[in-house]
């Protein structure tokens, strides 16, 4: 977070901005369901923070290494939910387990996301000199309530969260009076329908949203493949992850004086000129050699001892880097250069072992140097922090992508926020922490950025519904980076980002506070949505607590009043409706501007919307037809209402399907 908020235009030093207009979110309570909290972290100091908001009905629960006195006016809630986890994991030994049977965070993940959403301001923080600056949350005076429902399983070295415990945590959070719920938790494909309680988060979120609580969830880390985005219920605000305009270039200096800038978090001393090797058979040996990173262990120690090793991998997960470093170090090697596809999962290597990532092009350059030189050598310098130009913003490779696999007409993710190499607080027992701070990547880190922004918007507009807040965030998002440069989406290959990568775009907090118009939704709209999706009237009735009769024929999901239009199967002309609510000046006139998707004709009626003291809500219709003669992929465009002060933009995504429900691989 030492860069996140300045990058998004929420600088604490600006005399007049959303941060200061809202007293940094002091009256807002952010509930977080995660792995718990490390209460001693300075990010939870309550210096200068006023009394606990009067609507708070929660508290702090004591347990192992945690008592209620760990709470203060910043950390106002801490509870834990373990009953279902214990019932399902009979081998779990709560006495011997590393995790704490209390709200205390063993993993550090919960502490990290809490910092991002609402941590207090702490200057002079870095990771071993990298990414230095001021750590703080999006709403630095907001109150934090931690609901621990995710537990560390020693045997499997993973954290897991039981649906039954999660639901209890959400139920308690609703009772306690949180204003925002932030969940950096997900499920793997295939997903469950929104009304299926197996997706406990969707069920809990539905009831939270009906009570005015905005629920923000991570979209998942299963990218860049399409149809991988999770937490896709239309009442949830689903978040994708981008990079910041920050990187950690690490000079690799070859013996021929060519300087290559790789990426690493190497904070050790400079490694002077050292022999460089790519393990491959010289042609006269019976030994086994491999230059594949995950197979470096088959090389003899002699091959790698005292050298820097170059290897190539097609795998993106971080464990490939850490295991390559381990194999080289075990053999007596001094460093490793990993050539790979960008995976946006940079981490330091254990014991400050030099491990530097490059792409295939630069890796091949190094390989050509090795092969053309009898005694290749290399020098590796410590990583530096590069902020601003020329570092561009990318949707992270790992960030899960749309379209939505349950309801393709509902655009997911909704929005994107920085979630790569974010420096925030953690548990002090966590590997790779530096004085209680760590850099982590994931949509886990992007979701609380949005939670922080929601807290600020909510502080300004207490009466806005979760749907109105979501609309404000989506319709005002940047479709470029904050400096006007286009956002790319990492993947194979890297491409320009589209709504399936980032929803409405990159969150623009300042604009979200004053959107002009919003696409609002309430209980009746969600009922119509569930009718349109074919859910039974009896299950809808029980979900919403009152008798429901769906219209006959059932309504069209295309009319669901989202801040986006997604048509997954356009064949004949369709007409859909949206309703806009004025939240800006009473007397306003908006005109429409459309960027149609390629080969798609759009007509909007009326083309002008007039709002005044008696007309706060106005509907418009969009007629859509295709000129394509074949089944196409998705094409993208946008629809903007503008009064010359506000630009209310929604993404358009249209796929022509002449032959419906058809799949081919030609």
């Amino acid at each position, binding site marked *: 977070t030492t860069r996140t908020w300045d990058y998004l235009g929420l600088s604490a030093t600006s005399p007049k901005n959303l941060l200061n207009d809202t007293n940094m979110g002091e009256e807002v309570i952010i509930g977080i369901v995660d792995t718990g909290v490390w209460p001693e972290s300075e990010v939870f100091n309550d210096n200068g923070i006023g009394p606990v908001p009067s609507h708070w009905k929660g508290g702090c629960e004591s347990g192992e290494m945690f008592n209620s006195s760990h709470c203060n006016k910043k950390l106002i809630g801490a509870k834990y939910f373990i009953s279902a986890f214990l019932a399902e994991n009979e081998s779990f030994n709560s006495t011997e387990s590393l995790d704490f049977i209390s709200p205390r965070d063993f993993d550090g993940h919960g502490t990290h996301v809490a910092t991002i959403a609402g941590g207090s301001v702490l200057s002079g923080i870095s990771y071993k000199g990298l990414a230095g600056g001021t750590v703080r949350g999006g709403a630095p005076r907001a109150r934090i309530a931690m609901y621990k429902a995710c537990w560390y399983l020693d045997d499997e070295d993973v954290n897991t969260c039981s*649906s039954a415990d999660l639901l209890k945590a959400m*139920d308690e959070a609703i009772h306690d009076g949180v204003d925002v719920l932030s969940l950096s*938790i997900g*499920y793997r494909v295939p997903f469950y329908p929104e009304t299926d*309680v*197996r997706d406990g988060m969707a069920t809990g979120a539905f009831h939270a949203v009906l009570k005015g609580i905005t629920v923000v969830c991570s979209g998942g880390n299963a990218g860049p493949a399409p149809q991988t985005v999770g937490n896709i219920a239309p009442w949830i605000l689903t978040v994708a992850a981008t990079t910041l305009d920050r990187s950690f270039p690490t000079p690799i200096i070859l013996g021929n004086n060519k300087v290559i800038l790789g990426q690493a978090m190497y904070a050790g001393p400079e490694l002077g000129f050292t022999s460089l090797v790519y393990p491959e058979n010289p042609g006269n040996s019976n030994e086994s050699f491999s230059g594949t990173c995950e197979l470096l262990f088959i090389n003899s120690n002699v091959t790698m001892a005292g050298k820097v090793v170059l290897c190539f991998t097609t795998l993106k997960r971080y464990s490939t880097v850490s295991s390559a470093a381990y194999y080289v170090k075990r053999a007596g090697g001094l460093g490793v250069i990993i050539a790979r596809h960008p995976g946006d999962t940079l981490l330091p290597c254990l014991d400050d072992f030099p491990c530097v990532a490059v792409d295939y092009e630069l890796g091949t350059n190094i390989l050509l140097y090795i092969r053309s030189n009898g005694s290749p050598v290399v020098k590796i310098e410590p990583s530096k922090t590069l902020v601003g130009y020329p570092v561009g913003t990318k949707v992270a490779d790992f960030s899960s992508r749309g379209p939505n696999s349950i309801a393709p007409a509902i655009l997911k993710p909704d929005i994107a926020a920085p979630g790569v190499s974010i420096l925030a607080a953690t548990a002090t027992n966590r590997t790779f922490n530096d004085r209680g701070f760590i850099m982590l990547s994931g949509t886990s880190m992007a979701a609380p950025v949005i939670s922080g922004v929601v807290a600020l918007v909510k502080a300004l507009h207490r009466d806005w519904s979760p749907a109105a807040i979501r609309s404000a965030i989506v319709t005002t998002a940047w479709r470029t980076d904050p400096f006007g440069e286009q956002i790319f989406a990492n993947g194979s290959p890297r491409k320009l980002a589209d709504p399936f990568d980032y929803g409405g775009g990159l969150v623009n907090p300042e604009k979200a506070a004053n959107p002009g118009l919003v696409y609002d939704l309430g209980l009746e709209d969600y009922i119509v949505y569930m009718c349109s999706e074919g859910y039974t009237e009896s299950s809808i009735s029980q979900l919403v607590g*009152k008798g429901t009769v769906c219209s006959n024929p059932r309504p069209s999901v295309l009319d669901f009043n989202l801040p986006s239009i997604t048509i997954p199967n356009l064949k004949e002309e369709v007409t859909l409706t949206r309703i806009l609510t004025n939240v800006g000046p009473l007397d306003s006139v908006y005109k429409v501007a459309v960027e149609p998707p390629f080969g798609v004709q759009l007509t909007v009626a009326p083309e002008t919307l007039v709002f005044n003291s008696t007309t706060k809500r106005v509907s418009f219709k969009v007629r859509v037809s295709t000129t394509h003669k074949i089944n196409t992929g998705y094409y993208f465009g946008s629809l903007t209402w503008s009064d010359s002060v506000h630009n209310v933009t929604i993404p358009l995504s249209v796929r022509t399907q002449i032959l419906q429900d058809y799949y081919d691989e030609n």
Partner: protein
Amino acid sequence: GAQTKVHIVYLGEKQHDDPEVVTESHHRMLWSLLGSKEDAHNSMVHSYRHGFSGFAAKLTKSQAKKLADLPEVVHVTPDSFYELA
């Protein structure tokens, strides 16, 4: 003797504002299924009573099926697990 697993019994919007009354209704539902107050107490894992109504309980497959057949029950599903993102 059948193996029990945690199931979530989801009842939708709560029918009463008093959380104690909501939880009591959950215990009663389990009691009538399992036949004794003590078994119901031992089976109960969580009572959801503030934002919505439902409970988590240790149930066999056949017990879960019996509950699912009750008209006031929306869903009964085995517990499942999420991971950090």
